[in-house]
Protein backbone atom coordinates (compact mmCIF):
# COMPACT_ATOMS: atom_id res chain seq x y z
CA UNK A 1 0.00 0.00 0.00
CA UNK A 2 2.15 2.83 -1.32
CA UNK A 3 0.87 6.38 -1.26
CA UNK A 4 1.91 8.40 -4.31
CA UNK A 5 3.47 11.76 -3.45
CA UNK A 6 1.35 13.75 -5.93
CA UNK A 7 -1.77 12.01 -4.67
CA UNK A 8 -0.79 12.78 -1.07
CA UNK A 9 -0.25 16.44 -1.94
CA UNK A 10 -3.62 16.57 -3.72
CA UNK A 11 -5.38 14.99 -0.73
CA UNK A 12 -3.70 17.45 1.64
CA UNK A 13 -4.69 20.39 -0.59
CA UNK A 14 -8.29 19.17 -0.60
CA UNK A 15 -8.20 18.72 3.18
CA UNK A 16 -6.80 22.21 3.78
CA UNK A 17 -9.38 23.77 1.44
CA UNK A 18 -12.23 21.87 3.10
CA UNK A 19 -11.09 22.70 6.64
CA UNK A 20 -10.85 26.36 5.65
CA UNK A 21 -14.51 26.33 4.57
CA UNK A 22 -15.60 24.54 7.75
CA UNK A 23 -13.75 26.94 10.06
CA UNK A 24 -14.54 29.89 7.78
CA UNK A 25 -18.08 30.43 9.02
CA UNK A 26 -16.98 30.48 12.67
CA UNK A 27 -14.35 33.09 11.89
CA UNK A 28 -16.76 35.01 9.69
CA UNK A 29 -19.46 35.49 12.35
CA UNK A 30 -16.87 37.00 14.69
CA UNK A 31 -16.17 39.84 12.27
CA UNK A 32 -19.00 40.18 9.77
CA UNK A 33 -22.75 40.28 9.96
CA UNK A 34 -24.16 38.48 6.97
CA UNK A 35 -26.67 40.70 5.17
CA UNK A 36 -29.38 39.83 2.67
CA UNK A 37 -27.14 40.04 -0.39
CA UNK A 38 -24.30 38.03 1.14
CA UNK A 39 -26.78 35.41 2.25
CA UNK A 40 -28.35 35.23 -1.20
CA UNK A 41 -24.94 34.80 -2.83
CA UNK A 42 -23.88 32.11 -0.36
CA UNK A 43 -27.16 30.27 -0.81
CA UNK A 44 -26.81 30.23 -4.59
CA UNK A 45 -23.35 28.70 -4.44
CA UNK A 46 -24.22 25.04 -3.64
CA UNK A 47 -26.80 24.50 -6.43
CA UNK A 48 -24.70 26.53 -8.88
CA UNK A 49 -21.57 24.52 -8.11
CA UNK A 50 -23.37 21.16 -8.29
CA UNK A 51 -25.03 22.15 -11.57
CA UNK A 52 -21.70 23.25 -13.03
CA UNK A 53 -20.14 19.93 -12.06
CA UNK A 54 -22.81 17.83 -13.76
CA UNK A 55 -23.49 20.07 -16.77
CA UNK A 56 -20.79 18.62 -19.09
CA UNK A 57 -21.90 15.06 -18.24
CA UNK A 58 -25.59 15.88 -18.54
CA UNK A 59 -25.52 17.96 -21.71
CA UNK A 60 -22.49 17.29 -23.91
CA UNK A 61 -21.29 13.74 -23.22
CA UNK A 62 -23.87 11.71 -25.15
CA UNK A 63 -27.58 10.91 -25.49
CA UNK A 64 -27.40 8.07 -22.92
CA UNK A 65 -26.04 10.41 -20.24
CA UNK A 66 -28.49 13.20 -21.10
CA UNK A 67 -31.54 10.93 -20.96
CA UNK A 68 -30.34 9.23 -17.76
CA UNK A 69 -29.74 12.63 -16.16
CA UNK A 70 -33.31 13.67 -16.98
CA UNK A 71 -34.64 10.37 -15.62
CA UNK A 72 -32.67 10.88 -12.39
CA UNK A 73 -34.05 14.41 -11.98
CA UNK A 74 -37.62 13.19 -12.43
CA UNK A 75 -37.03 10.30 -10.02
CA UNK A 76 -35.61 12.74 -7.44
CA UNK A 77 -39.00 14.49 -7.23
CA UNK A 78 -40.68 11.27 -6.05
CA UNK A 79 -38.06 8.89 -4.67
CA UNK A 80 -35.46 9.04 -1.87
CA UNK A 81 -31.80 9.67 -2.69
CA UNK A 82 -30.64 6.09 -3.07
CA UNK A 83 -33.55 4.99 -5.24
CA UNK A 84 -33.08 7.99 -7.54
CA UNK A 85 -29.39 7.25 -7.90
CA UNK A 86 -30.26 3.64 -8.73
CA UNK A 87 -32.63 4.87 -11.44
CA UNK A 88 -29.81 6.94 -12.94
CA UNK A 89 -27.22 4.16 -12.80
CA UNK A 90 -29.49 1.47 -14.25
CA UNK A 91 -30.86 3.70 -16.99
CA UNK A 92 -27.42 4.88 -18.12
CA UNK A 93 -26.15 1.29 -18.24
CA UNK A 94 -29.16 0.17 -20.33
CA UNK A 95 -29.09 3.23 -22.61
CA UNK A 96 -25.40 2.72 -23.34
CA UNK A 97 -26.20 -0.80 -24.51
CA UNK A 98 -29.00 0.41 -26.78
CA UNK A 99 -27.72 3.73 -28.13
Amino acid at each position, binding site marked *: *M*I*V*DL*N*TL*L*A*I*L*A*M*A*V*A*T*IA*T*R*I*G*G*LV*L*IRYVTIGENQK*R*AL*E*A*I*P*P*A*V*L*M*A*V*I*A*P*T*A*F*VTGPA*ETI*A*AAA*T*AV*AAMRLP*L*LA*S*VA*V*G*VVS*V*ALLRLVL
Partner: protein
Amino acid sequence: MQEFRAAAIAMTPLIVAVMPIGLVFGAVAASKGLAPAEVALMSALVFAGGSQFVAMDIWTHPASWAALGFSALLVNIRHVLMSASIGGKLDNFTGPARYASMLLLADEIWAMAEMRASNGKLTPAWYAGLAVPFYCVWVLTSLSGALLGAFLGDPKVTGLDFAFPAVFIVLVMGFWKGRETGAVLAASAFAAVLTHQLLPGVWYIAAGAAAGVVVALLSGARKEAHA
Protein backbone atom coordinates in the same frame (compact mmCIF):
# COMPACT_ATOMS: atom_id res chain seq x y z
CA MET B 1 -22.14 8.99 27.33
CA GLN B 2 -25.93 8.77 27.39
CA GLU B 3 -26.14 11.85 25.19
CA PHE B 4 -23.58 10.39 22.81
CA ARG B 5 -25.59 7.17 22.46
CA ALA B 6 -28.91 8.95 21.98
CA ALA B 7 -27.41 11.14 19.26
CA ALA B 8 -25.84 8.14 17.52
CA ILE B 9 -29.24 6.40 17.51
CA ALA B 10 -30.85 9.51 16.03
CA MET B 11 -28.18 9.49 13.34
CA THR B 12 -28.65 5.81 12.37
CA PRO B 13 -30.84 6.30 9.26
CA LEU B 14 -28.29 8.72 7.79
CA ILE B 15 -25.46 6.34 8.62
CA VAL B 16 -27.24 3.56 6.74
CA ALA B 17 -27.86 5.85 3.77
CA VAL B 18 -24.22 6.88 3.49
CA MET B 19 -22.91 3.29 3.38
CA PRO B 20 -23.60 2.53 -0.30
CA ILE B 21 -22.36 5.99 -1.27
CA GLY B 22 -19.08 5.30 0.54
CA LEU B 23 -18.77 1.92 -1.19
CA VAL B 24 -19.38 3.44 -4.62
CA PHE B 25 -16.95 6.25 -3.90
CA GLY B 26 -14.23 3.75 -2.98
CA ALA B 27 -14.91 1.60 -6.03
CA VAL B 28 -14.80 4.49 -8.49
CA ALA B 29 -11.70 5.95 -6.81
CA ALA B 30 -10.00 2.57 -7.21
CA SER B 31 -11.01 2.51 -10.88
CA LYS B 32 -9.31 5.93 -11.26
CA GLY B 33 -6.07 4.33 -10.04
CA LEU B 34 -6.07 5.29 -6.36
CA ALA B 35 -4.68 2.74 -3.91
CA PRO B 36 -6.99 1.64 -1.06
CA ALA B 37 -4.73 3.46 1.43
CA GLU B 38 -5.07 6.66 -0.62
CA VAL B 39 -8.85 6.30 -0.76
CA ALA B 40 -9.07 5.83 3.02
CA LEU B 41 -6.70 8.74 3.60
CA MET B 42 -8.79 11.03 1.42
CA SER B 43 -12.03 10.05 3.17
CA ALA B 44 -10.38 10.50 6.58
CA LEU B 45 -8.76 13.87 5.89
CA VAL B 46 -11.27 15.50 3.54
CA PHE B 47 -14.52 13.87 4.77
CA ALA B 48 -16.70 15.75 2.28
CA GLY B 49 -18.44 13.42 -0.14
CA GLY B 50 -19.40 16.00 -2.73
CA SER B 51 -15.88 17.32 -3.21
CA GLN B 52 -14.46 13.78 -3.19
CA PHE B 53 -16.85 12.79 -6.00
CA VAL B 54 -15.85 15.86 -7.99
CA ALA B 55 -12.17 15.07 -7.38
CA MET B 56 -12.67 11.66 -8.99
CA ASP B 57 -14.33 13.35 -11.96
CA ILE B 58 -11.31 15.56 -12.63
CA TRP B 59 -8.55 13.24 -11.34
CA THR B 60 -5.38 13.17 -13.46
CA HIS B 61 -2.12 11.25 -13.29
CA PRO B 62 -0.07 12.69 -11.71
CA ALA B 63 -2.68 14.36 -9.52
CA SER B 64 -2.75 18.16 -9.67
CA TRP B 65 -2.92 19.50 -6.13
CA ALA B 66 -3.82 23.01 -7.29
CA ALA B 67 -6.80 21.93 -9.42
CA LEU B 68 -8.05 19.47 -6.79
CA GLY B 69 -7.59 21.88 -3.88
CA PHE B 70 -9.34 24.64 -5.82
CA SER B 71 -12.28 22.47 -6.79
CA ALA B 72 -12.62 21.24 -3.18
CA LEU B 73 -12.74 24.88 -2.09
CA LEU B 74 -15.47 25.65 -4.63
CA VAL B 75 -17.59 22.61 -3.93
CA ASN B 76 -17.31 23.01 -0.15
CA ILE B 77 -17.79 26.77 0.05
CA ARG B 78 -21.33 26.08 1.33
CA HIS B 79 -19.67 24.95 4.59
CA VAL B 80 -18.96 28.61 5.33
CA LEU B 81 -22.69 29.28 5.54
CA MET B 82 -23.30 26.09 7.52
CA SER B 83 -20.60 26.80 10.11
CA ALA B 84 -21.67 30.45 10.35
CA SER B 85 -25.18 29.22 11.14
CA ILE B 86 -24.35 26.48 13.64
CA GLY B 87 -21.49 28.55 15.06
CA GLY B 88 -24.00 30.80 16.82
CA LYS B 89 -25.52 27.77 18.59
CA LEU B 90 -22.43 26.31 20.27
CA ASP B 91 -22.87 27.97 23.67
CA ASN B 92 -22.08 24.75 25.53
CA PHE B 93 -18.75 24.32 23.73
CA THR B 94 -15.36 25.60 24.89
CA GLY B 95 -13.37 27.65 22.37
CA PRO B 96 -11.16 24.81 21.11
CA ALA B 97 -14.14 22.39 21.03
CA ARG B 98 -15.96 24.77 18.68
CA TYR B 99 -13.19 24.65 16.14
CA ALA B 100 -12.62 20.93 16.60
CA SER B 101 -16.29 20.16 16.05
CA MET B 102 -16.31 22.16 12.81
CA LEU B 103 -13.70 19.78 11.35
CA LEU B 104 -16.45 17.16 11.02
CA LEU B 105 -19.14 19.48 9.68
CA ALA B 106 -20.57 17.30 6.88
CA ASP B 107 -24.01 18.16 5.46
CA GLU B 108 -25.82 15.38 7.30
CA ILE B 109 -24.14 16.11 10.64
CA TRP B 110 -24.83 19.80 10.26
CA ALA B 111 -28.51 19.19 9.51
CA MET B 112 -28.92 16.95 12.56
CA ALA B 113 -27.02 19.39 14.79
CA GLU B 114 -29.26 22.26 13.63
CA MET B 115 -32.30 20.14 14.44
CA ARG B 116 -31.01 19.40 17.94
CA ALA B 117 -30.20 23.06 18.54
CA SER B 118 -33.74 24.04 17.58
CA ASN B 119 -35.58 21.54 19.82
CA GLY B 120 -33.13 20.64 22.56
CA LYS B 121 -29.68 21.39 23.89
CA LEU B 122 -26.74 20.88 21.53
CA THR B 123 -23.92 19.62 23.76
CA PRO B 124 -20.42 18.47 22.75
CA ALA B 125 -21.42 14.87 23.63
CA TRP B 126 -24.49 15.06 21.39
CA TYR B 127 -22.48 16.51 18.53
CA ALA B 128 -19.85 13.79 18.93
CA GLY B 129 -22.60 11.16 18.83
CA LEU B 130 -23.78 12.55 15.52
CA ALA B 131 -20.35 13.00 14.00
CA VAL B 132 -18.00 10.24 15.15
CA PRO B 133 -19.94 7.09 14.08
CA PHE B 134 -20.89 8.73 10.77
CA TYR B 135 -17.25 9.65 10.16
CA CYS B 136 -16.00 6.13 10.92
CA VAL B 137 -18.59 4.57 8.61
CA TRP B 138 -17.64 6.95 5.78
CA VAL B 139 -13.95 6.07 6.05
CA LEU B 140 -14.54 2.32 6.44
CA THR B 141 -17.06 2.01 3.59
CA SER B 142 -14.85 3.96 1.18
CA LEU B 143 -11.93 1.70 2.09
CA SER B 144 -14.13 -1.38 1.58
CA GLY B 145 -15.32 -0.01 -1.76
CA ALA B 146 -11.71 0.47 -2.86
CA LEU B 147 -10.77 -3.06 -1.81
CA LEU B 148 -13.87 -4.60 -3.45
CA GLY B 149 -13.69 -2.27 -6.44
CA ALA B 150 -12.01 -4.79 -8.70
CA PHE B 151 -14.89 -7.21 -8.17
CA LEU B 152 -17.53 -4.66 -9.07
CA GLY B 153 -16.46 -4.67 -12.73
CA ASP B 154 -15.90 -1.84 -15.23
CA PRO B 155 -17.89 1.14 -13.87
CA LYS B 156 -18.71 2.29 -17.42
CA VAL B 157 -20.51 -0.99 -18.18
CA THR B 158 -22.32 -1.22 -14.84
CA GLY B 159 -23.19 2.49 -14.99
CA LEU B 160 -21.55 3.09 -11.60
CA ASP B 161 -19.51 5.95 -13.05
CA PHE B 162 -22.87 7.70 -13.34
CA ALA B 163 -23.53 7.31 -9.59
CA PHE B 164 -21.77 10.58 -8.72
CA PRO B 165 -23.50 12.72 -11.33
CA ALA B 166 -26.76 11.07 -10.23
CA VAL B 167 -26.11 11.97 -6.58
CA PHE B 168 -25.48 15.56 -7.65
CA ILE B 169 -28.63 15.70 -9.74
CA VAL B 170 -30.65 14.56 -6.73
CA LEU B 171 -28.92 17.12 -4.49
CA VAL B 172 -29.53 19.89 -7.04
CA MET B 173 -33.24 19.00 -7.10
CA GLY B 174 -33.18 19.27 -3.30
CA PHE B 175 -32.05 22.88 -3.56
CA TRP B 176 -35.03 23.78 -5.76
CA LYS B 177 -36.93 26.73 -4.29
CA GLY B 178 -38.84 27.96 -7.32
CA ARG B 179 -38.15 29.98 -10.43
CA GLU B 180 -35.22 31.83 -8.90
CA THR B 181 -33.37 28.54 -8.46
CA GLY B 182 -34.19 27.69 -12.07
CA ALA B 183 -32.49 30.88 -13.25
CA VAL B 184 -29.41 30.15 -11.12
CA LEU B 185 -29.20 26.59 -12.47
CA ALA B 186 -29.70 27.62 -16.09
CA ALA B 187 -26.97 30.27 -15.85
CA SER B 188 -24.63 27.86 -14.15
CA ALA B 189 -25.24 25.07 -16.69
CA PHE B 190 -24.78 27.39 -19.66
CA ALA B 191 -21.57 28.96 -18.34
CA ALA B 192 -20.19 25.58 -17.31
CA VAL B 193 -20.81 23.88 -20.66
CA LEU B 194 -19.38 26.83 -22.57
CA THR B 195 -16.26 27.00 -20.39
CA HIS B 196 -15.85 23.24 -20.48
CA GLN B 197 -15.72 23.36 -24.29
CA LEU B 198 -13.25 26.24 -24.35
CA LEU B 199 -10.86 25.80 -21.40
CA PRO B 200 -9.06 22.78 -19.95
CA GLY B 201 -9.19 21.85 -16.25
CA VAL B 202 -11.85 22.72 -13.68
CA TRP B 203 -12.47 26.34 -14.66
CA TYR B 204 -15.94 25.31 -15.77
CA ILE B 205 -16.88 24.77 -12.10
CA ALA B 206 -15.74 28.28 -11.18
CA ALA B 207 -17.52 29.74 -14.22
CA GLY B 208 -20.78 27.97 -13.42
CA ALA B 209 -20.61 28.97 -9.75
CA ALA B 210 -19.88 32.61 -10.64
CA ALA B 211 -22.68 32.77 -13.22
CA GLY B 212 -25.14 31.29 -10.71
CA VAL B 213 -24.16 33.76 -7.99
CA VAL B 214 -24.41 36.73 -10.37
CA VAL B 215 -27.91 35.67 -11.43
CA ALA B 216 -28.93 35.20 -7.78
CA LEU B 217 -27.71 38.70 -6.90
CA LEU B 218 -29.39 40.23 -9.95
CA SER B 219 -32.74 38.60 -9.26
CA GLY B 220 -32.41 39.65 -5.61
CA ALA B 221 -31.75 43.25 -6.65
CA ARG B 222 -34.76 43.17 -8.98
CA LYS B 223 -36.96 41.81 -6.21
CA GLU B 224 -35.86 44.65 -3.92
CA ALA B 225 -36.56 47.19 -6.67
CA HIS B 226 -40.09 45.80 -6.95
CA ALA B 227 -40.68 45.82 -3.20
